[in-house]
């Protein structure tokens, strides 16, 4: 009984840790996309603000 309970607890703990890890990576991916969008907007605005027209790919037009 004790062993079973121990196993059960361990499994739950493992599952929880897996969820935690997954959640962490989801946040990481979302943050990557968010920061990429932020820097894309910044780069484009700064280049255009300097009078240097750029296209959607940030290359000179």
């Amino acid at each position: 009984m004790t062993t079973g309970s121990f196993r059960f607890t361990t499994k739950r703990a493992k599952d929880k840790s897996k969820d935690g890890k997954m959640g962490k990576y989801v946040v990481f991916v979302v943050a990557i996309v968010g920061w990429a969008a932020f820097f894309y907007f910044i780069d484009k605005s700064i280049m255009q603000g300097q009078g240097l027209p750029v296209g959607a790919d940030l290359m000179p037009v």
Partner: protein
Amino acid sequence: MRLTYFIAFFATLFAFVVPEFAAAAADVAEVVLEGAPKPSRMDYPLIAGISARTLAWSMAQMHLFLAAFVLAVPLFAIATEFMSVITGDDRFDNMAREFMKITMAAYSLTALVGGGLLLSLLVFYPHLMGYLIKVFRGQMLIYAALFGLESITLYIYFYSWDALRRGNRKYYHMSIGLLLNTVGLTLMFVANAWASFMMSPAGIAPDGAITGTVWEATRNPLWNPLNLHRFLANIAYGGAIVGGYAAYMFLSEKDKKLKEHYDWMGYTSNFIAILGFIPLPFAGYWLMAEIYAYSQQMGITAMGGILAWLFIIQAVLIGTIMLAANYYLWSGLMRTDRGAQYTKYVKYIAVVIVGGFLVWVTPHTLILTTDEIQNLGGTHHKLLGPLGIMPAKNTAVNLMLVFTFLSFQMFYRSSRVPVVSWAKSANMVIVALYVVGIANIVGAGIYGYITPTVYKVGASVPQVVTTLSIIIGSVIIDVFMLRGAKSEKVHWGRMTERSQYALFVLPVAFTWLMGLMGYIRSSLRTNWHVYTVMKDNSSEAYIPTLGDAGNTITGITLAFMAVMVFVFWLSRLGATKQKGTEGAV
């Protein structure tokens, strides 16, 4: 009550003096239609074979070193004093007072060397000084008055420290400090106007005839870039010098408590130095961009002519500063018990800092023999040549700054354990910010190789903004994430003696760097006293060889270091009591 009289006296003095200052600054020009003087070689006095240029150069540079130090230290002394009010921790107050103690020892030397500079200019370059006095008229008197006010406020600020330490009196004391800093900065801005006028004259006709106001001459094209650059450099420089003092005291003291104090002081000074240093390259870029905008010829003399090689030495010195500052931060990880868990990242940061350093010192054009050119297949190395141009160097410097900030962030984190439930997620957001930010910096660097020059130059701005975004973004997230964090004990004093030598490297490298860059800035005028307006016809109106310039700069640096050792020794002497007289008042 006496204090009220005292403040009322100052308020009255200000009420009378400030309008006079304003009137003098706005002084409408009496139109002087004669142009700038045209002295012949015979008009430059030759006295006992003294090299006038070397003398004026040494005096000006030494004065600038000391002035930068005594202007910067009160700035962060008042910030540290303010910290003591906010936190109620007397350690900040004691440290601020100690900062000022070093300044006091250096202040009279600053005035002494300033007087020496003025005399050497009046004796050896009378025509130039006469012309500058005509251009700036009453502003020269304002400078003298401000210098007097600076002395008064500095002495009052220091000597009233204990008398105005508690309660509302503390705010009076900080007000005096604020006045001291306002006057100090104004002094610097005025002196900068004269130096920048000589590079980019304004308010005059092409032949030098004075047609504008003093304000027009002051607000010349390079004034504000120089103001910003010197302001930041002074903060970094002051921090580095005080850090050197803290290291000197750390190594000298045997008492454990005092060692802890000086270790903390060293850490704080290094932090101040880095804080001033991180935005400095950006201010430098702005100054250089404005130089190019004002005169392309002047810009090319700096970055593409004889002076360009000195920028390689500049890179070596800045790389040295970065390595020393980072090494000190890495050593600091041993102060906390959790610090060890971060040491595994140090080697990666070191790779980036050293890699960035090597890219920065890579010259574009090599000095080669004919055989070497033939072996190489041209004047540029196939692989290393591309690293000699600005996109590579901009990328390198931005990455070095980002990773220096990371070193600091690791130390800061090592003494704090976040307790908020979303700490892991916040860490991921910070990691993502670093990853995307670094990719953006590198991407913008590569972009510079595949686009026209104007886009290449333009792409350096997003790189700067990215670096600042990483730093500011991380700080904001850290502030929220570490709110109420569990503090780990920081074992101040648990530092190797070796690490203190990194704090000695910083002031030496900073001093050398300032001497070098000051020489470059001044040499941009080539054979002109006032660029394109008043020619230098003295026998020394030429750019010296790099070796001669390097020797002079090194000589001045060594002399300044000797002065600083004297100042440190003096500060220590003041706190030393003869055996048996410890109880004496």
